[in-house]
């Protein structure tokens, strides 16, 4: 409102209105970030005593350590395994469900259903499916006369298996966002492309995908940030093993937390640099969309 009362009066009211949010964000978001960066300058013994200033040494040591490079590598591989897969599969589901058929709503509900699962729920479902002795997967393999597998216990397959459960859990989200956008694409665009002689695949690539650009961009960033923050599925399915093959960054931070606060802080700061940059991209994009969209 254009009324500019005395600024002091508005400042007093504004202070009261923003105080709760400022307090919480200050204590639980901004202060922790700064203190985490600060803690990275100190080393201490495993009992949390004898804190000693080491400057940037610890940052250098941790960033160059095998265990950090391993979790960074694992995390990046996890991102690469999950994000494109979830995007492509979700997009295919949406395409499949974007038909005018009797009863299509039922299929849409099924395709969207994994949105109701949490990371923990999805992980428990798959844990039981993959359970080595009585799990359904091995039952099927046995019935087919194949050897039983223990995918979560094999360093070569563990990460991909965790990724599979994550992709399954993300499908609902990708599906819901893309089908909503697909349905808002005017039918006339497809009709005109059809008149111009474009086939089904060509229409998909030349109309659907470009017009879904904003949504695909949004999903890419959200899924990527989510993958960098993965913790629950690792904790439930593999606990970082076997042989650290699934020890992603957040899992590593949590493991370090009681043992080596300084090192955990450094890893947290490094994680922030990666995720912060991605979030920044997303925020800028969202902001623009809110301003110029609709």
């Amino acid at each position, binding site marked *: *409102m254009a*009324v*500019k009362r005395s*600024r002091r009066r508005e400042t007093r009211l504004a202070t009261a*209105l*923003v105080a*709760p*949010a*400022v*307090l*919480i*964000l200050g204590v*639980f*978001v*901004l202060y*922790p*970030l700064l203190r985490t960066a600060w*803690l990275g300058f100190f080393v201490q013994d495993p009992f949390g005593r004898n804190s000693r200033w080491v400057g940037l040494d610890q940052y250098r040591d941790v960033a160059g350590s095998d265990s950090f490079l391993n979790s960074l590598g694992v995390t990046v591989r996890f991102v690469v395994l999950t994000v494109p897969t979830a995007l492509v599969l979700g997009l295919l*589901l949406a395409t*499949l*469900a974007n038909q005018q*058929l009797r009863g*299509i709503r039922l*299929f849409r509900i*099924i395709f969207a*259903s994994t*949105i109701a*699962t*949490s*990371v*923990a*729920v999805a992980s428990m479902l798959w844990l*039981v*499916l993959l359970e080595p002795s*009585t799990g*359904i997967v091995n*039952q*099927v393999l046995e019935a087919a006369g194949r050897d039983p597998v223990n995918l979560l216990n094999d360093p070569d397959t563990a990460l991909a298996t965790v990724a599979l459960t994550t992709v*399954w859990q*993300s499908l609902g*989200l990708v599906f*819901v*966002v893309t089908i909503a956008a697909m349905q808002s694409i005017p039918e006339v665009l497809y009709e005109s492309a059809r008149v111009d002689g474009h086939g089904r695949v060509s229409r998909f690539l030349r109309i659907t995908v470009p017009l879904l650009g904003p949504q695909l961009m*949004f999903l890419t960033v959200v899924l990527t*940030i*989510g993958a960098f*923050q*993965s913790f*629950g599925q690792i*904790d439930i399915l593999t606990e970082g093993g076997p042989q650290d093959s699934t020890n992603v960054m957040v899992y590593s*931070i*949590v493991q370090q*937390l009681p043992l080596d*606060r300084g090192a955990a*802080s450094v890893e*947290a700061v490094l*994680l922030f640099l990666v995720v*912060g940059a991605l979030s*920044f991209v997303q925020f800028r994009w969202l902001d623009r969309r*809110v301003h110029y969209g609709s």
Partner: protein
Amino acid sequence: MAADAKRIELAAGSKLVARYLLLALVAAIVLFPVYAAVMVAQKSLTELGSLDVLVPDRIDLGSVPTALGEARMGRYLVNSAVVSVAIVIGQVVTSVLAGYALAFLDFTGRRALLAAVAASLIIPFEVTVVVNFETVQQLGGVDTYWALVLPFVAFPLGIFLMRQAFLGIPRDLLDAAVVDGYGHLGILRSVALPLVRSTVAALSLFSFLLAWNQYLWPLLVTNRDDRRTVQIGLKQLTGAVGPDLGVIMTATLLATIPILVLLVVFERQLIRGLTAGSVKG
């Protein structure tokens, strides 16, 4: 001619059948883990060693009491509900108040605050977990409800969503309320808030989903069973009921039911909330 027409009709018919078959096949694949869980949940320990477990031969809710009682899912569900509702209320209140101030009030430090909220938006909780755990420990917050709730009571994305919603209110309506004699608090209560109801609903749903699905933080700050939330309670199940996969699956499905109900009731808000943006998976 008639034969041709019939052939075309047949071709169209078989094409339709093919479409449905494809949809059904894909649906079966997507749904399989949930289907298997529902089947396993109804079987006893002794039946698990064979593929017959997938046969829907009965409706057996026998493992529900075990899951709720022995496996303590009842307690976990109550904890999760208490914590999630408290977080939603807190987030909505702080987001509405701060969003209104950032949208309409002219005050010293406004730009700095906007920048600070934007900065908070890109700081993932996982990064602050080291120090937040320290804070909660020092304040004696381990195994308390407030430790589960308080860090999430302000939500940068919520503040921005509400600010954006307030800015979307036609300016004339707000001016009219000023002329009609209302101050900012009156306008917020009588005009602005009722007009952004749908955003509040979307935000509430979204923040409930995030709160209900939280894993890392509850895992860190709860040790006692009677404070655990449902998500981390799930992981403890193997310890509580041993290898009884039926009970574990029942418990897992129970953890999902509140969300399913919400999603069915608030489908529309869900889509709004999701497209408005999520940072945390």
